[in-house]
């Protein structure tokens, strides 16, 4: 299949969201794609979380990095972005990149080849990942957008952030559904965590207090087939 054709199909079917005037695709797999910029944003990969635990004696399965990269690979193959922004906590700790299995490193480097790649510094990985290409930045401003790991306390139009691992829960026609989600109010967007071992925190938790205009807050919940945009009045805690 032709890449551009597949991209066009994807985008045609996708829901667009507006963030400070920029149009973006909220992909159900947990990434944001800005078609005009050909920019893909992904957050909280937490690569090598498994080995980070192993280092401290809990030998949990080492397949999280592989699982996460495989999903990332699929997304990149679909959109063929010119720019990729990894929004911080790309690695679970500072030594993550170093510990990464050679096969994963190769897979990652293959994904990075031929495009601009930005590692935004996160609280788990404040420094540049060892021996990997790409630019490490504290934050990144492109057009009217600002990419940073932790959402700032003050209201910033066009801020794309991660860090909080948002999820949302609704109760509809006798069923309760809890999913990872994008959380946005038109001005700011907080992205879901992408990593295989990452937990999530309900957008109604107090950690999000003051970040959004509640009346325009929408949770873009990740469904199996598509994204579901849910207004804040429908959301349930827990």
């Amino acid at each position, binding site marked *: 299949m032709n890449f551009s054709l597949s991209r066009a199909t994807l985008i045609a079917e996708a829901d667009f969201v507006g963030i400070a005037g920029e149009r973006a695709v909220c992909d159900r797999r947990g990434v944001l794609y800005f078609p005009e910029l050909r920019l893909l944003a992904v957050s909280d990969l937490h690569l090598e979380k498994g080995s980070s635990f192993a280092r401290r004696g809990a030998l949990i399965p080492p397949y999280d990095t592989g699982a996460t990269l495989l999903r990332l690979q699929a997304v990149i193959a679909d959109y063929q972005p010119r720019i990729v922004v990894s929004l911080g906590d790309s690695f679970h700790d500072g030594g993550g990149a170093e510990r990464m299995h050679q096969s994963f490193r190769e897979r990652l480097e293959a994904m990075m080849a031929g495009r601009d790649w930005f590692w935004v510094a996160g609280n788990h990985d404040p420094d540049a990942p060892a021996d990997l290409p790409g630019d490490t930045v504290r934050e990144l401003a492109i057009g009217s957008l600002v990419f940073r790991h932790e959402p700032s306390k003050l209201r910033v139009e066009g801020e794309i952030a991660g860090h909080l691992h948002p999820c949302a829960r609704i109760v509809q026609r006798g069923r309760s559904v809890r999913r990872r989600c994008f959380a946005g109010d038109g001005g700011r967007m907080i992205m879901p965590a992408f990593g295989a071992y990452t937990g999530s925190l309900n957008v109604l938790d107090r950690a999000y*207090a003051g970040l959004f205009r509640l009346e325009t807050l929408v949770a873009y919940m990740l469904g199996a087939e598509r994204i579901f945009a849910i207004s804040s009045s429908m959301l349930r805690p827990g």
Partner: protein
Amino acid sequence: MTEQPRLAEQNVAVLLPEPFVKWFAAKGWSPRLHQLELLAKARAGQSALLIAPTGAGKTLAGFLPSLTELAKRPRRKPGGAHRGIHTLYISPLKALAVDIERNLGKPVEEIGLPVTIETRTGDTPSHKRQRQKLAPPDILLTTPEQLALLIASAGARRFFEDLRYVVLDELHSLVTSKRGHLLALGLARLRAFVPELQTIGLSATVAEPDELRRWLVSQASPEAMSELIVVTGGAKPDISILDSEERVPWAGHSARYATPEIYREVKRHKTTLLFVNTRSQAELLFQELWRVNEDTLPIALHHGSLDVAQRRRVEKAMGENALRAIVATSTLDLGIDWGDVDLVVHVGAPKGASRLAQRIGRANHRMDEPSKAILIPANRFEVLECRAALDANYLGAQDTPPLVNGGLDVLAQHVLGCACGAPFHADALFDEVRTAAPYVSLDRPTFDRVIDFVATGGYALRNYERYARIRQTKEGLWRVSNPRVAQQYRLNVGTIIEVPALNVRYVQAGSKGAASRGGRVLGKIEEAFLETLTYGDTFMFAGRVLRFEGIRENECFVSNAPGSDAKVPYYGGGKFPLSTYLAEQVRAMLDDPQRWKKLPEQVADWLRFQAEKSVLPKRDDLLIETFPRGNRHYLVAYPFEGRLAHQTLGMLLTRRLDRAGAKPVGFVATDYALAIWSLADMGWMFKNKKPSLAALFDQDMLGDDLEAWFADSWLLKRTFRNCALISGLIEKRHPGKEKSGRQVTVSTDLIYDVLRSHEPDHILLQATRADAATGLLDVSRLAEMLSRIRGRIVHKDLEQISPLAVPIMLEIGKMPVHGEADETLLMDAATLVEEAMGPEMAD
């Protein structure tokens, strides 16, 4: 054995040192035959299993070999080297160890023996533990977990080098759990330290004594068994079923109808022990008794969720004979000796003949007097079960559960423990482990995978070599790679995973914002129940139909679901499933009108009506009734295979019925029957073979359907969590030391998902599936049943509910709430009964 055979005094003198003979004489007692027999066998260097009812002097018998040997030992010279532990006593309960210290201390003091006895449990202060290591007592009383810790400490071999005997109390209850697996491995280790070590097992009667005999000794020579001494039953117990003047209820577990009659019995006896099957039943009965307790008799309550101090107060009062009645759950099943109980009342069905015998053994601790017991069936099926149990007790039938193969998660824990103690050689440890009965069929590749798991997680992706917890030296010995590993091991030892009850917190529908995170708490609900739910499932609790929204930390969130069917039943019955043996007895009784004569008239009438309106299943048949009621269609099956198997069957049948287009809505399972209700007419479907009942109940449901259900069941994720904790993959949470926050934990659910998709054959998933199949689902029993009923399904398509179906129909939507009456939840019993039996029978 009411007559104690006389032993030649000579024999006694040979076996018993003089101070003991004098002590017996001073007490006006003579040593019992089994005590001397055990002593003689121990003298001859043999290990032995002593099976005896309570009150037979089992404890003293178990310690006589040690005490007589210690009596003859020369005193340690002041300043001389400390001697190691001589005898290790292991009991399943801390309380039992403490109790033994008291009971054993008395004769030791009276005989004037130079013997030190100490306990070592989780409560022992660390300075005392330290001192015990330097100056060990002669007899150490402890628990399986403490043994594991001792083995894992450096210098374990020295600490145990003088060990002569290991006395294992209540062995029958220890061997059936993962604790038993851990203990068997610990014992194998001790035998490696001291090859001539002798074991003495003390047990209540069991179905297969040979299993325990093998368990006690090294299996290095195949099928080796310890010696066996059986003390047969004392006086025949005097057991009766309460022939109530009240109406025996159709369903339910409270036996509230019998409260005045129970109270009358309490008044007529000195001390009554009242056994129930669950904690909520205990609470309820206790309250009911106090409601009618016009003489304010001292009646106490004893169960596991009560505060320890409170339990100790009750135990003390019991010991002082200050109580007239104690309502208790299984916490008092084990052989703790207190007070003069002259009546045991068993409320609810005993669920197993062995359990009944054990509990009745609590009455009258002098084994030559008959124990007196009254069974109080809580409902009509329980009348049948009590009758069957009673017949079984007279027959001496036993039905303790068969032993299962040792868990691989437990083995992993033990392997790490061994390494913490001293470096080991894999070949030697493999041989050693296989001397433990639960691990006798362990194969080398599996063992090597367990070692690999302990070392680096055992993953196909060899990524964790540098984080190995144990490493092989050049000489081929496995040793702990760093001291922190041993420290972590010590914090996580044991196989008991606390499964707390969760608060059920109401989330108001339509609430919003961060402030409304939780509404009020409706009560507590067992995690085990929540395991069976998936998001969106509805169930009844605290007078409402609730929807399960999720679990967050220690809270279960629910929302209101008015107007929906409660889809998932709450199991209010006993925790113990009906034993296979009793189930068979009950089926046989239904099939044999001659035996109904022994039943209360109202129950016999019920069966006669069933025969008239529907049919009574033959002993080996499976009766399935279908009938409409309200706007639902019902299927009721009567396999009598116990709740666990029925629950699994219910899950699988609903999947199949769903595929067949029956639109099943929910199901309920009891120990006796299973009811499924649907929107489509199942009776019509079965008659037209769409599908046929034979196809529906085909054994192939245990293949793909079971797998598919396994895959996304909460049940398996929770089982995986337990295996992950026991095997040491992740750390146990320590109350008070828990670090909160998502950063330091990773959900075992996510680990499960990742592992399942990347390495489905990983050893921990293997252990998880094995556990779930035996413990939680009773798959093997279901399999036996499905094969038994092939070609023997009897279908009755009825116009209306049958008499036999009334009890399970009453269970639908019924839900006991801890310590709270739930009148409002009861279905309209009168209507159902009238429909089934005609107006003359309904009252």
